[in-house]
Each structure stands twice: as C-alpha cells, then as structure tokens.
C-alpha cells in the first residue's frame, strides 16, 4: 500500500522555492470501499510530499495507517484536503487533541 514517490524530493524542492518544509504526522482511517485503492501511492504522485508509513493495519472493515508527510505546508494541506474528499478520516498523530 505504501510507496514513496520517485520523482520528488519535496524538502529540497521546497527549500529551493523559499518555502519552509515541514513534517506532519497523521493517522489515516479508510472506509472499506477505499481499502484496495493505492491511495498513498496516488498521494505521492499528486502532491510534492514524501510519504513514510510508520504503522499500518488493514482488515475487511477498516484500513488504519500512521503516515509521516514531508513537504511544503501548502502541499501537505492540499494532500489532506484531497484525502478527506476521498472519504479518508485524517487525524493528527495525537488523534483527538480537542477534549471536553
């Protein structure tokens, strides 16, 4: 499921453009209909970010992936918006930061 993109080196590219690279750690939770789709590979090709899977569990019911994204802030934000539009639940590594 997880492939780092071959064509981009986001951190270097971002630095060259003057944009600040950043690292973002996320938990992705996929509904069953998306489990067979190579979403992380697609993400790595659509956006100038590098992807690094740190933990994953896939069953018939749900796909759970802990993912590190490296790249320019705007690219990471766009990648998250794309994932959410697909129906992937995107949480920070802390999961629920807002408590009652």
């Amino acid at each position: 499921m997880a492939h780092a993109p071959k064509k981009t080196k986001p951190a270097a590219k971002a630095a060259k453009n003057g944009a600040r690279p950043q690292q973002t750690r996320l938990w992705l939770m996929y509904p069953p209909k998306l489990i067979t789709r190579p979403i992380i590979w697609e993400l790595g090709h659509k956006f100038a970010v590098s992807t690094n899977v740190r933990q994953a569990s896939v069953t018939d019911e749900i796909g759970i992936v802990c993912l590190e994204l490296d790249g320019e802030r705007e690219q990471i934000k766009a990648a998250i918006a794309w994932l959410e539009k697909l129906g992937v639940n995107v949480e920070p590594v802390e999961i629920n930061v807002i408590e009652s």
Partner: protein
Amino acid sequence: MEKHEGFMKALKCRECGREYPLAATHVCEFDFGPLEVAYDYDRIKKSLTRAAIEKRPQTMWRYRELLPIAGEPTVGFQVGFTPLVKADRLAKRLGIRELWIKNDTVNYPTLSFKDRVVSVALSRARELGFKVVACASTGNLANSVAANAAAAGLKSFVFIPSDLEQGKVINSLVYGANVIGIKGHYDEVNRLCAEIAGKFGWAFVNVNMRPYYAEGSKSMGFEIVEQLGWRAPQHTVVPMASGSLLTKIHKSYQEFMKLGIIPESRYHVHGAQATGCSPISVAQKAGLDFFKPVKPNTIAKSLAIGTPADGFYALKVMKETGAVAEDVSDDELREGIKLLAEYEGIFAETAGGVTVGVAKKLIASGRIPADDSVVLCITGNGLKTLDAVVGHTGRAREIKPSLREFEALINAEGELSAAI
C-alpha cells in the same frame, strides 16, 4: 536511559515498549505509539502502604508515589478525595444490591474530574520549567486549565471551536485565560491545535504533557478502592470520551493489586457512551478490537469524540476484565440525569446521565447481576450543561402573592396535595 525522577523511571511506548527520558513528549519516534509513564514499583512498595496513605491529607495527592511528578505537587493541593456516596435509593430503583456514586461533580476547583489530570499536568509542567500552559477543549478541560493555571500563577492559552456556547467560554475567560476561538470544521480545528502544540514551546496539557496528564485519572480509582474499605468494586461503570479514564481506572486497580495494597480480585470496568457518539461501544458490542470513526451527534458534548485516541486500549481493558460497553439515547441520558438528581440529590452533567443510563441498561439486562456491587463514575457537574435539561424537568407554578391562590393550587393539583 533511566534517570529516575521521584518514583518515575521513564516514558515508555505503549506499542513497542521503547523508553524515552521523562521530558515533555508524548509519541514514540519509531511507531508513533503513545507514551506512558513507567514507575519503579519496587521502590514504591517500600513507601506506599495503607497506613501511610491513611495518615496523609484527604486529597488525590495521598497516592503521590503513583502520580507522575518528581517532587512535591505545586498545583491543585486540594483536588480529589471527592465523596463516594452509597446510593441506596437509586440502587433500589435500578434493582441492584449495592450501588455507589463516585461524585466528581464536586471536585475542586472547577467541578469536574478534569481537575485531577490538570493538577498533575501543571505540577509536572512546572518541574520541567514551563511558564505557559495550554489546552484545546470544549468545556471542562478548558475551565480546569484556566482556573488551576491562574491559582498557580501560570499563563494559560485555551483553544476552542469558535461556535462554543457563551457560558462555557466565560467559565474560562473569568480566570484570565487567553481564549482563542478557531473557526472551521472540528477536524480542521483539531489538526490546527495539534500543529500549534508542536510549534510553540508550551506545556500543552493533553498533547506534549499527555503521558503525565492522563495518569491523574488513576486517583479516581485509588480513591474508590480506599473509600470502599480497601477493595476493588466488582463492577465500575465509566463514561468514555477518548476512553482514557476507563483505562486509567483499570490501571489504578492493577497497581494497588501489584503493590499488595489490596488482594487480587476479579473486577469488570464497563464503558458508557451516548448513542449519538458511540464508536467504542459499537465496536465492543460487535466484538471488534478496533473502532470506526463517527461524526458525533449527541447532547452529551463532553463525550462527543468521534475518533477516540484511547479507544483501542479501552476495548482491550473491557476484554481483559470481562466487561461490556453500552450506549444510551439523548432521552435516556436525560432520564439518567433526573434519576441521579431525584434519588440521590446529585446533579450531574450529560456524561453522568450517560453513565447512569448505561448502568440501568446493564442491570436490567443482567449483564451486571442484581446481587453484585457497582460503582458509577460521575465526572462533572450538571450546572455546566443546564441546556441539556431545559424543558425536560418539572415546571415552576406561578401564583399571585395570595394565600387563597396557593390553597387553590394545592387543591387543584393532586401531586402537590400528596406532598403535604
């Protein structure tokens, strides 16, 4: 790696067991698993006995060796040791032999169990040299951070969704906290708060201080055991938002058994959620060891976490202790609030209504046997969620300042004349 601080040994990843220094950090660099405080139980055993505990002031700090600070507490000296009420009238109503209410509606100073976790997080934050503390919250946590920080002379930032009710905002603003409302969808606000926590060098109580913060919940379990006469209850019903409190109640019973403070016994720690936000309950009932995220839709706002961080661990605890989860509708939770108020004189917030409602279901269905003993963890005060019961209580009758009118009212309403 190990440099003992107080009775703490290290921070330890709950997934892979890797150890980290006792700093303000919360995630394993290897697998991003949550970090938890590891203690030196051999040393604790020499210092923490029933007799030692009983001599100490009646606050949560009487179990200090099992709380994650290196020195003496500096924030929240008065927190904890809330009443454990023997609820005979409610027990009879629910059809159970023995029922106890652990009443954190009167926890000091902000009337919820959050004062336990916050006083630990802030005491530890001070030890680590922080001057600014922060949290992201929709209610009880914000109030507690604001109040405890004010009392300790710490500067505080409280992040809230911008559409939060005015009353809840004032409950933080009054303490002089810097309250920042963030516009946007819940998920966006949640991610931004995580980003802010990572970028600014503050003690974010439920982010980088989380390993310490979460341990404060154990004090509720320690108190239950002591107040029951040094025994673990057969059944404990705990409300679940992130699921953290349930795991820490379990940990508190385990630690007392491990230290020989109470004998080994079988106990069950059941979880309670509102049906409108029940990812953990749904998973437990389906026999799954993972939950599916949901979009919350319930009046129990203090439990409305659709992706609970400790959901996986809460499910594990319920499995290990032979416990179950259950959920109740908004109407059922309102009934729970009223039952607790009308039978025990305790006014709980919506989470308390959930806990009572779930206990009622578990008893009625025999999942908690009628001959057993139960403790309900009631975590917050009803004055904080008045909106939830407006229009669902009795009504005040109005009369002119006339004795004749009052007598006419009494005669007209059978319920009133029966009370004479």
